[in-house]
């Protein structure tokens, strides 16, 4: 369970303050497959970064899998990222100097896992994405779609509860995009909670749940029935309605 309540995040530069998230609330239930859409600059990446503990936030609360994340040390956040979260990036972010096997190995090494177990997990993750035969290729020897599948293998090798993907198909053609989407669905069916940011409505439609972020807020936020609390309901045209 991923629970964000009244989160705000402001980017301050010399000239301007950008309210990337404002009074942002959202819950994602275990096993969910949530597609997040919204206009460019609306705060989707910021949301995902906060959710993935890549960035902090200014006010509000965020608990991940029952752990209140505010006040965690940098090391504790690294550890949570490593154990509970798999990240998939728009531009794959494979390490160019490491072969596929070693790329998938990266998060496992940070978990100080035994060699035999790492080997087993890497092999089965690569099997799942259909790239076991490419284990000793370099990323540059693979197509974009294949690279993204390696990135997915890297994200799931550690068996995280949450998979966060920021426009994972943004750099892929539609065929490759569909393959990546198939893979994500398959992973979701195996029990992993997925939050997918995409601007592709067709892909979004395949998710169980759609969330739209506009101007730093979930435009149609409604707390889950199971969390009956006096939560303020954001107006759909929320832009500027709250500070």
């Amino acid at each position, binding site marked *: 369970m991923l629970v964000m309540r009244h989160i705000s995040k402001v980017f301050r530069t010399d000239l301007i303050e950008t309210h990337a998230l404002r009074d942002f609330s959202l819950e994602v239930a275990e096993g969910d497959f949530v597609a997040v859409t919204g206009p460019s600059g609306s705060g989707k990446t910021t949301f995902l970064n906060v959710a993935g503990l890549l960035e902090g936030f200014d006010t509000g609360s965020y608990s991940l899998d029952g752990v209140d994340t505010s006040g965690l040390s940098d090391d504790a956040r690294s*550890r949570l990222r490593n154990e509970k979260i798999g990240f998939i990036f728009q531009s794959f972010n494979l390490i160019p100097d490491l072969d596929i096997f070693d790329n998938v190995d990266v998060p496992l090494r940070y978990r100080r896992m035994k060699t035999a177990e790492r080997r087993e997990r890497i092999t089965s993750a690569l099997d799942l994405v259909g790239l076991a035969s490419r284990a000793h290729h370099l990323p540059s020897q693979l197509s974009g779609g294949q690279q993204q599948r390696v990135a997915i293998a890297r994200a799931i090798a550690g068996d995280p509860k949450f998979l966060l993907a920021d426009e994972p198909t943004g750099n892929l053609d539609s065929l490759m995009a569909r393959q990546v989407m198939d893979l994500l669905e398959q992973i979701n069916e195996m029990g992993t909670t997925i939050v997918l940011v995409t601007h592709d409505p067709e892909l979004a439609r395949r998710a169980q749940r759609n969330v739209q972020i506009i101007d730093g807020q979930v435009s149609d936020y409604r707390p889950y029935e199971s969390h009956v609390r006096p939560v303020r309901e954001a107006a759909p045209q929320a832009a500027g309605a709250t500070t």
Partner: protein
Amino acid sequence: MISHDIRPILSALLRNRTGAVLVALQVAIALAVLVNAVYVVKQRVDKIGRPTGVDVENIFVAISAGFATDYNHAATTRADLAWLRRLPGVRAATLSSNIPLSGGGSATTLFQTPEVKGEGTFMNYFDVDESGVDALGVRLVAGRNFRADEILPEDPTGSKPVPNIIVTKPLAKALFGTEDAVGKVTYDALGHPVSVIGVIEHMQGSWVDSDKLDHVGLLPRRAVGPNATYLVRAVPGQRDAILKLAEEHLSTSDLRRVLRIVRPLDYYRDRSYQADRNIAIFLVTVTALLGCVTALGIFALATFNVNVRTRQIGTRRAVGARKADIVRYFMVENWLVTTAGVVLGAALALGVGYALSRAYELPRLDLYYLIGGVLVLWAIGQVAAWQPSKRAAKVSPSVATRTV
């Protein structure tokens, strides 16, 4: 734990090796130069620091030159010595034919028989009077000192017999082996017998670069005029004050001569070691510079590696690396580069050391220097890589999503 991380770091490094190879070469050269330079410097420092056997710090030298036609060398030097010896704070003063450790001196050859055949034995000698032993501060370990009545008059030709002599232990050993030298007779170059009446423990003679620097003899003879060289030994702490008094007195006491030079003896010793000192300073400077340049090279490589890998660092952070893991990554990577350099450098240092020892007949390079050099370069490498590594750890994990 580190070995756990090495393999992927190494394989990434090997896929990007140009900079690493250059820096490793730099480390190798630095090590080779460092080790050999330190070795040479150590030898020079040891050479400069050898015990002289002479009380160098408390002795000064005064040289007077008689020029007037009515200058009376014997009378003037007697008066000078009498004055000097009366001066409170003066331990002893002697006339001497030469200044020890100055690079100028006299030498002759002694023989085993009056026929003066064979190679003979080298002797660097000083004409001194009965105060010579005390004025030099050398230590008599056998036999006796000269008596005043044994001091021979000046001998401008240098051909008259000198029946008694005091020698250093090394010279005694060269002349007579391990037997007790006192009372033994040797022969000067003209075949006159010379008896050893005393042995001094140790004294360095005239030429610091000579391998027979300590083959020294003291002859009981008044040094030839009209130049007079006085060696004056003060009680500790008084040398400079007495030097000043002596300078004032000797320059005015007899106007038939001029006082040419008044200098502490350590001036001459330091001048003799000037070249050794310069080489040592030069090598230390070059080595320090090379060390700095090497550190800079390592720093530049690490900085470059951090800069081109910002996104990779962000990604590593995003998938769970702690800051310490990032620091360790770059420190280990740098250590691998330095180690490659150090291994190559050790081979180079041994090679250079061997060549040097052949060419200059230096003893072979001591392995401890190599080990020390390796440790120093490892340290330089880790220090130089520290700041870039810390900077790498500051890269935010959000770089992974924010950079396209």
